[in-house]
């Protein structure tokens, strides 16, 4: 395993859900990777499948979901091939997740300190007293002032931001190689947002973990991530370094997302015509699922899913007609 091998490598993952008597392929041949020590952002609209990808990685698929194909490689193991017992060993140590809903992710009947202490006890095998002391330390580390007092509090007595910090502390205790943060700042103040991200960066500095940040907010990605992966309707549209993506968005969807960033000196279709994504149509398309809303769609787009094409070093785009947006293309 060389340094270049990505930590997380999702290859052609497909997941379907039942809808009445059919199955809807919510994730369609999704492929992306997260390098060691990297900070990658997974961007897309709600319903694009970003959370589902991470849930699948963690092994938290709801019972009605089915993996139709693909592999998830984490540190030399195909997570999809593991049994539930093996998977539970992988969780925590190798990959951990911070969820969107902060307070509900904590046990309402356990004090904050006890919950972190429990994580420490299980992961490190130390005794109760030692674990609790360490827990208080961790809470201090994630920026909770007056940690001893807060440790005795119950989740409903803590603010949303503090709950999130407690969660991060629990994850820190596990020292995962990959930390997935799913919309960690939804519903939180902008000022708290900044603090949460700083805290996540701190986690990375301290543990060397890779971070996969899931968000719908391009602005957040621009400020915090090194790489970006753009997702739409269960398909990967584009992936690049942050600098490259913002300098030169290639995919029509990315360009639509960056709507206000469109340059005045280029002639591009305004995104106006794109109404709400029609699920029945979109999920049934064999080719590129953005086709119905795409201003430069070609007939082939409907029938054949575009392969990811490497345009520059690390800038990949999956589109038959990405040049059509740029004219002659730089």
């Amino acid at each position: 395993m060389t340094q270049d091998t990505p930590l997380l490598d999702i290859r052609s993952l497909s997941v379907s859900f039942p809808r009445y008597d059919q199955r809807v392929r919510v994730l369609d041949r999704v492929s992306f990777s997260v390098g060691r020590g990297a900070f990658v952002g997974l961007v897309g609209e709600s319903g694009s499948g970003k959370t589902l990808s991470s849930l699948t990685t963690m092994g938290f698929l709801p019972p009605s979901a089915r993996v139709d194909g693909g592999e998830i490689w984490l540190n030399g193991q195909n997570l999809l091939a593991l049994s539930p017992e093996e998977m539970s060993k992988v969780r925590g140590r190798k990959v951990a997740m911070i969820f969107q809903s902060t307070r509900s992710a904590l046990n309402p009947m356990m004090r904050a300190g006890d919950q972190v202490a429990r994580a420490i006890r299980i992961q490190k095998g130390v005794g109760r007293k030692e674990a609790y002391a360490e827990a208080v330390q961790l809470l201090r580390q994630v920026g909770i002032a007056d940690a001893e007092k807060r440790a005795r509090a119950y989740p409903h007595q803590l603010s949303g931001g503090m709950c999130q910090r407690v969660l991060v502390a629990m994850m820190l205790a596990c020292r995962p190689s990959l930390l997935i943060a799913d919309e960690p700042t939804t519903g939180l103040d902008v000022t708290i947002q900044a603090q949460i991200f700083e805290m996540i960066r701190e986690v990375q500095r301290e543990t060397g973990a890779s971070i996969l940040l899931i968000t719908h907010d391009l602005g957040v990605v621009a400020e915090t991530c090194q790489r970006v992966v753009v997702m739409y309707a269960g398909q990967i549209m584009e992936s690049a370094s942050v600098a490259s993506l913002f300098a030169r968005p290639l995919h029509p969807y990315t360009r639509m997302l960056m709507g206000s960033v469109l340059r005045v000196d280029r002639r591009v279709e305004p995104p106006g015509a794109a109404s709400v994504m029609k699920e029945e149509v979109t999920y049934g398309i064999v080719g590129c699922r953005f086709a119905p809303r795409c201003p430069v769609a070609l007939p082939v787009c409907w029938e054949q899913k575009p392969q990811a094409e490497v345009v520059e070093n690390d800038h990949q785009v999956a589109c038959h007609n990405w040049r059509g947006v740029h004219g002659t293309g730089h």
Partner: protein
Amino acid sequence: MVSEAVVKPKGERGGVRDSRAWRTWYVLRSHPSMIAGLVVLAIVLFVTIAGPSLVPYKPLKTDPENRLLPPSAMHPMGTDAFGRDILSRVVHGARLDLFIAFSVVAIALGIGVLVGMFSGYYGGKADDIIMRITDVILAFPSFILALAITAILGNSIPNVIIAIAVAYIPYFVRLTRGEVLSAKERDYAEAARCVGNSNWRIIYLHLLPNCLTPALVQATLCLGWAILDASGLAFLGLGIRPPTPEWGVLVSEGSRDIISGQWWTSFFPGAVIVLTAFAFNLIGDSLRDVTSPTEAVQ
């Protein structure tokens, strides 16, 4: 160039899956308990309506020569201590029990929903008082309350209906009030934005359909409980008395025969009670599953 072609999803048969009828049918199909309940209920209803004209024996006709015969081809449910055919009595009893059950629910639903809407919409002191009253009524187990009221009012069918209905009204009041309160939250802002004097009646009409679904679920369950309560009271000798063929009465009459080994005189009427209540409960439970918000996600 934007392609005009719209690709039909795989396996689609011309949009039939989007029709409400199809979706309703699919939901029904995936809830076998609902179907089972409906089938049993249909049988019971059929027996109730057509039964009395189909059974050959008169329910009150005694035939001492043929007393206490075990189930046979002539008497599928056997005969009782007076020689009466049990099947005929059960079939005639169906009318009475179902009549009582539906009357009880009609009254409880009617009064309960009205009071609940009033209480939820107007709020304030009236709401407080109504809530305290429902608390008090609910402080009595419903069977005990019905028992006390029937004991005082006297043994007659209307009295039984009133007694049981009184015990059920609070459930509908609470349910409706809850719906109204949450609808008030939602529609209030909407109404405020509308032309200032928006007619509250319009909101009433909006609220009513929303409340109906949980009320319907509760009503179905209450139908089952009513049969159990009414027959329980009759078994104790309250409300409906022999020789009127009511299922509870039949069980009571038959209970004396158990010790001497004639199990069928009390078993069949009781089994029918349980079966009917079971059907209502199946339907009510499935209805609740189907109409609860989580189902809509599918």
